[in-house]
């Protein structure tokens, strides 16, 4: 045995190469060994790289956003003319002053306060509606003897998979009429049934709230439903044994248990609606009902700094909402995740109402998911909008050769022959694929790092950092990167900036999916491979990925489909060369080009659904798995 453990420290000498001194390492060497050992663990490398990349891609751009609110951009020169003469690049606080205080022509009121309160109103009401609809359906499906449960539970999630504007477009297809501003053609109701709805029914707060509410209802359904489903039936059964009445049980036991889920859903929907642009541009802008997100877009060209200021407000709201949400769920978590072994509680008997409620629900679900598709198909083949007659049907807007069509939008061929469409399709596809690849892979690696180093400060920091973009509403994130493009002009109007912003936006989802699936996998599965000397990359490719294949593919699928239908995020950043399908869609709807926009909406939905279906059939992955729903 080599005796290296003699304690001879007191016999210090100056010979640095002496054996004794070797034991007493210099602090520098000690740190060096520590660092070396630290970076020998792949999970640590991933986490550190993530920190650097994410700080660079989120925190720094946020700083740029705030900085840019104080910079005079070319469009600000005339906007701020009443405060003095500025040249581009000057620093000033007057953008803030003007947006928040200027009273001429009610400037601050019209451009900031009204849109801001419109946003808040829309978000609060939408979240309420989403919870009422989603929660009710969840309750009916999990707790009563409703009929057609399978159909309802599958189809009800559809609106969440479909683009936000689907229902907005459908709403217009149904209710628009020529009595409204903008000299529109008659929609289905006006033309066929002679029902002319008033302006504030067709446009503005009311339809937006309905559309957002229905769009986010599946969110509430998944959250509340999974808790109702996993809730230990004993909790209710013991109340039954104590002779509590059915309604009292729901009020005193069931509701308190799902309350935290309801609150979180409310906050999440609230934050999403605050940052959403699409339905607002369809249903609000035509009648001058502005919300913060549509105002940001409008302001970019007339007072860029002021649009950044509004972006800051959106982000502040997002962060506030998440903080509240964490406070709520953090405290309550302990009893929201109760699961039990006992079997399902006996269903509430709806008695006579059973058939009525079941049929109403099926009709409702059908009309918000399947009917819109028929409507889009119909509108896209009508020659003269507003006339629903067989003789007026045409496939021109799909397959006509160039030159055959005269349209507001300036296009002159059927969708399939239109070069602009193909280019936009190519842009959308390559953007979505790249974003999905980057976000999915990033999420998986971060998930790996976080799961392996779980409990360490670094892992907690990284998982919070990766979740951070979730707090930033889509429109505001667009504004952030617009500011980045100001600083780094080579990014301006490029595909790259769209890719980056998409990557950042969808990283939280992918990270969550990645972390969840990594946590399911015991570390021993990997250690069994470490023991036999399998290098790290091979462990990932040969062991970890194949085992968790389906949940990783969900991690790719979610960013892909979201990106295919995304507009709010990209609206500020798209340039002439980087137009996507959704961007064209917005253009068509602004130009009142009904056939094109309906055809294109249908096309996008079909692409998304087909890809999703194919992936699901071939790999077993699905969106709801990635979301963590049931």
């Amino acid at each position: 045995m080599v005796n290296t453990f003699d304690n001879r420290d007191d016999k210090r000498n100056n010979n640095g190469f002496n054996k004794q001194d070797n034991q007493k390492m210099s602090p520098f060497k000690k740190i060096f060994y520590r660092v070396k050992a630290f970076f020998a663990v792949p999970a640590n490398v991933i986490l550190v790289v993530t920190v650097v990349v994410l700080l660079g891609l989120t925190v720094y751009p946020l700083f740029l956003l705030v900085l840019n609110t104080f910079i005079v951009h070319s469009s600000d020169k005339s906007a701020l003319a009443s405060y003095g003469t500025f040249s581009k690049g000057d620093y000033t606080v007057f953008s803030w002053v003007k947006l928040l205080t200027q009273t001429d022509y009610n400037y601050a009121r019209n451009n900031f306060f009204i849109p801001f309160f419109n946003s808040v109103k829309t978000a609060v009401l939408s979240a309420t509606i989403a919870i009422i609809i989603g929660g009710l359906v969840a309750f009916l499906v999990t707790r009563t003897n409703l009929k057609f449960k399978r159909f309802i539970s599958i189809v009800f999630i559809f609106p969440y998979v479909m683009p936000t504007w689907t229902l907005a477009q459908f709403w217009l297809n149904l209710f628009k009429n020529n009595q409204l501003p903008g000299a529109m053609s008659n929609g289905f109701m006006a033309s066929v049934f002679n029902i002319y709805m008033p302006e504030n029914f067709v446009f503005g707060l009311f339809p937006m709230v309905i559309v957002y509410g229905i769009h986010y209802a599946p969110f509430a359904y998944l959250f509340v439903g999974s808790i109702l489903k996993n809730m230990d039936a004993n909790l209710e059964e013991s109340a039954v044994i104590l002779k509590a009445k059915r309604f009292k049980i729901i009020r005193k036991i069931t509701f308190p248990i799902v309350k935290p889920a309801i609150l979180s859903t409310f906050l999440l929907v609230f934050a999403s609606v605050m940052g959403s642009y699409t339905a607002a541009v369809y249903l609000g802008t035509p009648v001058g009902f502005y919300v913060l997100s549509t105002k940001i877009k409008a302001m970019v060209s007339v007072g860029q700094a002021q649009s950044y200021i509004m972006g800051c407000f959106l982000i502040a709201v997002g962060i506030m909402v998440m903080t509240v949400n964490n406070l709520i769920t953090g405290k309550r978590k302990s009893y929201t995740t109760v699961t039990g072994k006992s079997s399902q509680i006996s269903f509430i008997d709806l008695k006579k109402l059973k058939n009525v409620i079941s049929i109403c629900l099926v009709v409702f679900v059908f009309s918000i998911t399947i009917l819109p598709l028929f409507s889009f198909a119909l509108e896209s083949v009508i020659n003269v909008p507003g006339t629903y007659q067989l003789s007026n049907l045409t496939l021109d807007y799909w397959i006509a050769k160039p030159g055959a069509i005269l349209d507001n939008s300036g296009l002159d061929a059927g969708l399939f022959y239109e070069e602009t469409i193909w280019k936009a399709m190519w842009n959308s596809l390559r953007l979505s694929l790249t974003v999905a690849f980057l976000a999915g892979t990033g999420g998986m690696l971060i998930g790996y790092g976080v799961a392996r180093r779980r409990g360490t400060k670094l892992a907690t920091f990284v998982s919070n950092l990766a979740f951070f973009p979730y707090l930033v509403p889509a429109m505001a994130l667009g504004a952030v990167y617009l500011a980045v493009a100001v600083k780094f002009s080579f990014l301006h109007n490029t595909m790259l900036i769209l890719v980056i912003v998409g990557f950042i936006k969808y990283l939280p989802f992918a990270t969550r999916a990645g972390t969840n699936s990594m946590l399911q996998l015991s570390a021993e599965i990997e250690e069994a491979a470490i023991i036999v000397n399998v290098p790290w990359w091979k462990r990932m490719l040969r062991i970890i990925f194949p085992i968790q294949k389906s949940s990783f593919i969900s991690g790719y699928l979610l960013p892909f489909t979201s990106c295919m239908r995304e507009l709010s995020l990209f609206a500020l950043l798209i340039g002439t060369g980087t137009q996507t399908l959704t961007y064209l869609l917005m253009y068509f709807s602004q130009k009142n080009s009904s056939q094109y926009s309906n055809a294109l909406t249908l096309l996008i939905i079909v692409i998304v659904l087909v890809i999703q279906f194919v992936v699901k059939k071939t790999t077993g992955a699905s969106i709801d798995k990635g979301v963590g729903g049931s």
Partner: protein
Amino acid sequence: MPEIILKNITKKWGKFVGVKDMSMVIENRAFITLLGPSGCGKTTTLRMIAGLETPTEGQIIIDNQVVFDSEKGINIGASKRSVGFIFQNYALWPHMTVRQNISFGLEQLKWNKEQIKERVDELLEMLKIEQFDKRYPSELSGGQQQRVAIARTLAPKPKVLFMDEPLSNLDAKLRQEMRTELKRLHADTNSTFVYVTHDQLEAMALATKVCLLDEGVVQQFDPPLVIYDKPKNLFVADFVGNPTMNFINCKAKKGTEANLLELEFLGFKAHFTANDMVDLRHRDVILGVRPEHMPIRKNGKIHATAYSTLPSGMETTVKVMYKKELLTSVVFGSIDYAIDQDIDIDIISNNLILFDKETTERIAIGKIDIYN
């Protein structure tokens, strides 16, 4: 010669000390069990030796090679320590068949195809799982999965094999069977085994030497029977043996010779004759009596009553009440006493153990003679 040496190994997580200043020499071809209650640091120790966990301080030497040294910054990864590891939940790769599971490691070691096939066949036969080679782990029973895990670990012929509670997921009958197999395997493979368990019977049955841990500190590192007969302290005495040892509070004073003591307990007076000299420091001592050393017999000196009888077929555990003190006795064969029936017991053995109540250390081994 794969001898494993641990020197002053310490593992801390923040302020929590998992393993404290552990030094141990595991001889070549030994079968060591790390035994202790849950949370005592046994799995951590095993994982540190295997290289899956990094110690905070200390030195580990395997086969004369320093694989870890906190002072010199040496830390050789698990993959380069040429060890095998069997995990508690087997950690079989669910997407690979039995054959692929076993051969995967060999492919990493760049064995050629025929060698791999030969070795896998050999192992399949050795562990009697030939018929399952194309099945996936989920299609096997627990015992079969266990065998596959062993085969996979043995495949590269590791000189050292680590096992982390490998039998805890099996039912009692299968566990018994696998113990037999493991002991044979140890003899057949010529390897050093290090085995973690919380089951003291398993530790005793398998090991050449048991390392008993508590709160990260080695309590005793000795062959099983030494641990059983000569526990170093109260913890060891209490942890090992089923049913557990009786502990009787006594007052002691020095006797006429260096190895003689006068004891008073439960109203009795007795001479204690130790096998060696006794260094009595405190008056309060604890007499440890194994249940088998407390037989029930007519005209025994202690007139007690039966509290409860627990027959198990081959033997019967009898709980006996004497002056509000509950004692345990084991009787060979099946007997059933009526509750509160009068029975007499004795304390007869040369292996009675005396512990210092304050330090909990063993102070003597010997016999007693109750005279009053």
